[in-house]
């Protein structure tokens, strides 16, 4: 009776499941963090005393990895709609692997930055370098939350809880993962244009 109540006695709203709506709002607040950092970056850069250095070329490769992972997570979603669970698992695990590879890549690039004598902190550091570490680091942190979310959905897919009639969790993880990808593209383009 009460399950029906939920369907019939509500004022028509957005048509989006509340959980998904919560996720979207959280994406808005995550975006606001980066909006703050990138605008702080521009303001600070215009004040001078700004170390100019070359962005490591490797960021292009990690970017490609993340774009690929967006494709695989979309593949998982499409497979779930077709109830092809084997493909769902394969695609989700692939996405997880690509995401992990992206993080490892970012880590290696931090090492490369240090070799370039661009430091996060300390006497030789400059805000221009510190900002790069903060932008990549905070994005990396959110990517880790995305990886955890992926693992939860992988587990669900092994328990047969992901299929064409139960698309909520896989839909949410797809949306979140695309968001993290687009966020990174924004940061990458921002860094390219402001270097």
């Amino acid at each position: 009776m009460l399950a029906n109540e939920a369907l019939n006695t509500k004022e028509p709203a957005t048509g989006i499941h509340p959980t998904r709506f919560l996720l979207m709002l959280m994406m808005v607040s995550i975006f606001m963090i980066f909006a703050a950092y990138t605008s702080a970056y521009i303001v600070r850069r215009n004040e001078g005393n700004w170390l100019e250095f070359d962005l490591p070329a490797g960021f292009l490769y990690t970017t490609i990895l993340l774009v690929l992972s967006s494709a695989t997570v979309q593949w998982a979603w499409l497979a779930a709609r077709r109830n092809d669970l084997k493909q769902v698992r394969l695609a989700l695990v692939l996405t997880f692997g690509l995401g992990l590879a992206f993080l490892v890549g970012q880590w290696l690039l931090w090492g490369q930055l240090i070799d370039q004598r661009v430091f996060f902190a300390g006497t030789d550091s400059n805000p221009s370098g510190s900002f790069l570490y903060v932008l990549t680091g905070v994005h990396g942190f959110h990517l880790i939350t995305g990886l955890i979310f992926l693992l939860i959905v992988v587990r669900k897919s092994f328990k047969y809880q992901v299929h064409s009639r139960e698309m909520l969790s896989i839909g949410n993880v797809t949306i979140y993962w695309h968001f993290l990808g687009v966020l990174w593209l924004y940061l990458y383009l921002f860094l390219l244009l402001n270097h």
Partner: protein
Amino acid sequence: MAANFPMQEQVQGGIGATEPGHDHAHHDEHHEQSFLQKYVFSTDHKMIAKQFLITGIFWAIVGGTLSSLFRLQLGWPEATLEWLKPFLGKWIEAGKLNPEFYLALVTMHGTIMVFFVLTAGLSGTFSNFLIPLQIGARDMASGFMNMLSYWFFFVSSVIMFASLFIETGPAAAGWTIYPPLSALPQAIPGSGAGQTLWLVSLALFIVSQLLGGVNYITTVINLRTQGMSMSKLPLTIWAFFLTAVLGLLSFPVLFSAALLLIFDRSFGTSFFLSDIYIAGQALPNTGGSPILFQHLFWFLGHPEVYIVILPAMGMVSEILATNSRKPIFGYRAMIGSLLGISLLSFVVWAHHMFVTGMNPFLGSVFMFLTLIIAVPSAVKVFNWLATIWRGNLRFTTAMLFSIGFVSLFIAGGLTGIVLGNAALDIQLHNTYFVVAHFHLVMGSSAFFGLWAGVYHWFPKMFGRMMDEKLGYLHFWLTFIGVYLVFLPMHYVGIAGFPRRYYAWTGFDTFSQFADLNKFISVAAIVAFLGQFIFIFNFFWSIWRGRRATENPWNSNTLEWTTPVVPGHGNWPGDIPAVHRWPYDYSKPGAEQDFIPQTVPFSQTQSSNLPYEKEME
């Protein structure tokens, strides 16, 4: 393959299906909850609201005590405070308050009042309590996240409270924690461990606010009962909704700034620090910009004052209409002005920074935008006054506090127009004029909104009424006290009396204000002591108050259609559907002077307006 899955699974992923509905179906069958589930780790929005309220009251006592301490110092700068030694310990040195501890007191008073009382205690309490009840929902979109929201706040509170007792003292760089003062322990002892705890506590606080805020927004958008369109929402809900939107957009920015400050303090980066010498020693930090911190901080800081005041505005609108027995004047204009204030709140932050040497052209842009806020604010004031104009006023305690709110909002708002002008602000910046302004317009007003809300919704929270006589006493003491404290403060401010000074006795210019300062201190301490009447009334009434009826104020909104003390799921039967707006008070031709939102037009044919006839 799909045919194998049971029906219930289909509903779960389907559009519009709601988890609270499922939850409720479960809880209706076996109602026994353990003590821990019911009172501690509760996911029921009403219990979480009470948790926020009682924690908020605790914090208000702490914040008020701190202000009484520094008012003692300001009122009697020459007096010996040795008698406070058992309470303050080593912070009393040879009968004198430690000057750095004075700054810590001011800092913690601001932090506690702005964040822990007027953000968490006010919108945490009433958004939680009223959103599901007034829109006709069983609970919040995610009860679990709602519970987390409170417990993050609780942990954040514990850390902030603990920081009051550490050896180097709590944070002392002001509630705005401007670096470099807040970044360098060499500058002031409070910037050591105290500031670290402050930042950790605030980070947790932000998480709590975001968990709560996304829940409020989702619930208002998705879980309204049938018929409850956005244009039939009580103004309280509009206010809570927009408050949550402001928090969602501005708190992450504070988080960003706090994270950079943490890196500067503990990891050796230089986002906000540059070219600093302390005791002849040059610090290694170069390239930072302290002004950048101010921009980031005030991008939150300004919306924050609206996060504090909007819920109060919403509740006051509701209480004024109910107790005037009149529809709210200009319902749509009220929503429009809330939207206008919310929008403008994001483009005025630099009016806190007129003295940072900003480009005068930029300053005049921010000045212009700031002054525009007077327009929606004036719309609201006009509508409140027009609502009570020739109304059939019922002076309940909540009504008195609502009228008090309007009075304080006008008195404090007028000086906002003064301070919004860059040329005047440069003169008045960092004087007590600013202190008087924001304590009236946002501090006291929001507190009045909070009290109005408590007195008005207490019967629904605890099933009993608060005592009216004690309420009147509380109101008059507070109302007169607030004006006696803050009106003279404008005057000393115009005379140039600076903020944040531990003692002014060294300056001849200001020593003539000694009497006035004593007066302010006496008024402040008496008004603070008056709050214990409220606290007694509150706790006494929880157990001993007169028993309430379902709808003691003859109000129209949905929460008054629930049982005296609503249980888990709010309505024992079906959720009521809504047919009309919430302000049908004293409608000509109606049998009673109020028509609840649940009454269809077919039952009120004698009072229907021509266009409503079609909906009968």
